């Protein structure tokens, strides 16, 4: 546990110069957008989802960039620390970022003059499941391709996304049905289901990442 704690702390220390800007962004962005877009004032799920994705993605990217620049990761490879621990710490960083952003958003939604739309436990858990799935793929890809290549691929995916969305639009109703049937579940069952899903994603992502790291050369 001490190893993971120090790794997570190290990741946040690496980006401490961006911390204040990120906090200001997390607080002001939902207020500004909600005031400008009344549609988000009744239900904050979409805005919350976008904010969560942006913030976790930005934080993770900043950390990856610093890891690439500073090469301290190579030093860690010569210590007795296992690859699993190094990978798990990345999922914890993402999860902590998710939790902090969620708490800030929830507090904002409780203050009426902010106009920030409320979110419900199922929306939070749904976002949690999606975020962990996203990073379940993204973290192994970072270890496999490195920060620079992944940046280029991400840019390509963003560029191609309108075409890809159009291509898969016929499956949207199917996905929507699954989401609706999941939402009809009892809150506790829904939370348990999400947590199990997140655990599976993290375990699989960690296995993949560790096997990639084992083959990596520095």
């Amino acid at each position: 546990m001490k190893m993971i704690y120090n790794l997570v702390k190290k990741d946040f220390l690496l980006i401490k110069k961006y911390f204040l800007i990120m906090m200001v962004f997390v607080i002001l962005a939902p207020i500004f957008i909600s005031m400008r877009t009344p549609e988000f004032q009744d239900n904050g799920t979409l805005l919350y989802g976008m904010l969560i994705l942006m913030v976790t993605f930005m934080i993770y990217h900043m950390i990856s960039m610093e890891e690439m620049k500073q090469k301290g990761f190579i030093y860690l490879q010569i210590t007795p620390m296992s690859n699993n621990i190094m990978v798990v710490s990345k999922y914890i960083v993402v999860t902590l970022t998710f939790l902090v952003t969620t708490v800030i958003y929830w507090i904002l939604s409780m203050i009426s003059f902010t106009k920030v739309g409320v979110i419900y436990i199922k929306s939070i858990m749904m976002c949690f499941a999606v975020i962990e799935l996203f990073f379940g793929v993204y973290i192994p890809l970072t270890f496999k391709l490195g920060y620079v290549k992944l940046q280029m691929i991400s840019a390509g995916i963003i560029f191609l996304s309108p075409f890809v969305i159009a291509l898969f639009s016929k499956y949207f109703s199917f996905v929507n049905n699954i989401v609706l049937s999941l939402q009809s579940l009892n809150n506790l069952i829904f939370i348990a289901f999400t947590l199990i899903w997140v655990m599976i994603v993290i375990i699989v992502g960690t296995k993949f990442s560790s096997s990639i790291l084992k083959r990596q050369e520095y």
Partner: protein
Amino acid sequence: METALDVRNVSKHFKNFTLDNVSLELKENCITGFLGKNGAGKTTLIKIILGLLHKDSGEIVFFSNKYKNVETIKNKIGVVLDDGYFYDNLNLEQMKNVVAATYSEWNENTYQMYLKKFHLNENQLISSLSKGMKLKYALALSLSHNADLLIMDEPTSGLDSEIRKELMDILGEYVQSDGKSVFFSTHITSDLERCADEIVIINNGKIIEQSSKDEMIESNRMVKGTLDDLKKMSDEYIKILDKTKYGFTGITSDFREIKQLLPNIVLEKASLEDIFLAKIGGDRNEDDL
């Protein structure tokens, strides 16, 4: 004397370089100098030993297979890398916290003792450390977890002579303790002349020689003579370092035969630098002195 590290027939192929069937052995309580010019393959072999590169073939045995798992072996190895490979945005204490948590035998008192000895401030950012201070910090980290084998990649390059001497003294003191060994790569022969017990010479990815430093120096002599003297000698006897129209300087291990053949020829004790240059077939380079 036990073996701390046994490298057997290790090979690694790159596009422009091959580490070719490398074998060497490190004895306990010895400082083994790993000597080679830049690009000879020193860092490649050290990275393979540390698991940062994967070998194509061969075998590496640590501590005569005394420890069964990789984590225990890594616990017993202290490492000082040329580049440092630290997180420059962190201060010394923050980086130490990350590193210390990974070692089962981390000794905070020893670490603090070295920080004090090296005049390092824990709150200082790593990015603000000079090369010499980074080396001292790396050394403090590597000596604070009861490592039995210290592996150092070019620790003295770019350092002033005072810090180099300080490092040599620390290494000398370190190997006095039972079961401790040092493997130390460099292209600066004077450092090894001062502290090494064993010398391994590598050139173009191949190990040319491994022997004790004293044996290497004792079994070679510097020969100085005229070009007429040179003509009377077989090429196999001598490796030429310098040749002008007035005479020559070379290194030989057949100095007794030469003395018999040419009784008036000058034979002097050879330096490690001259022996090294003769072995790799290079010229004298004042920068490396």
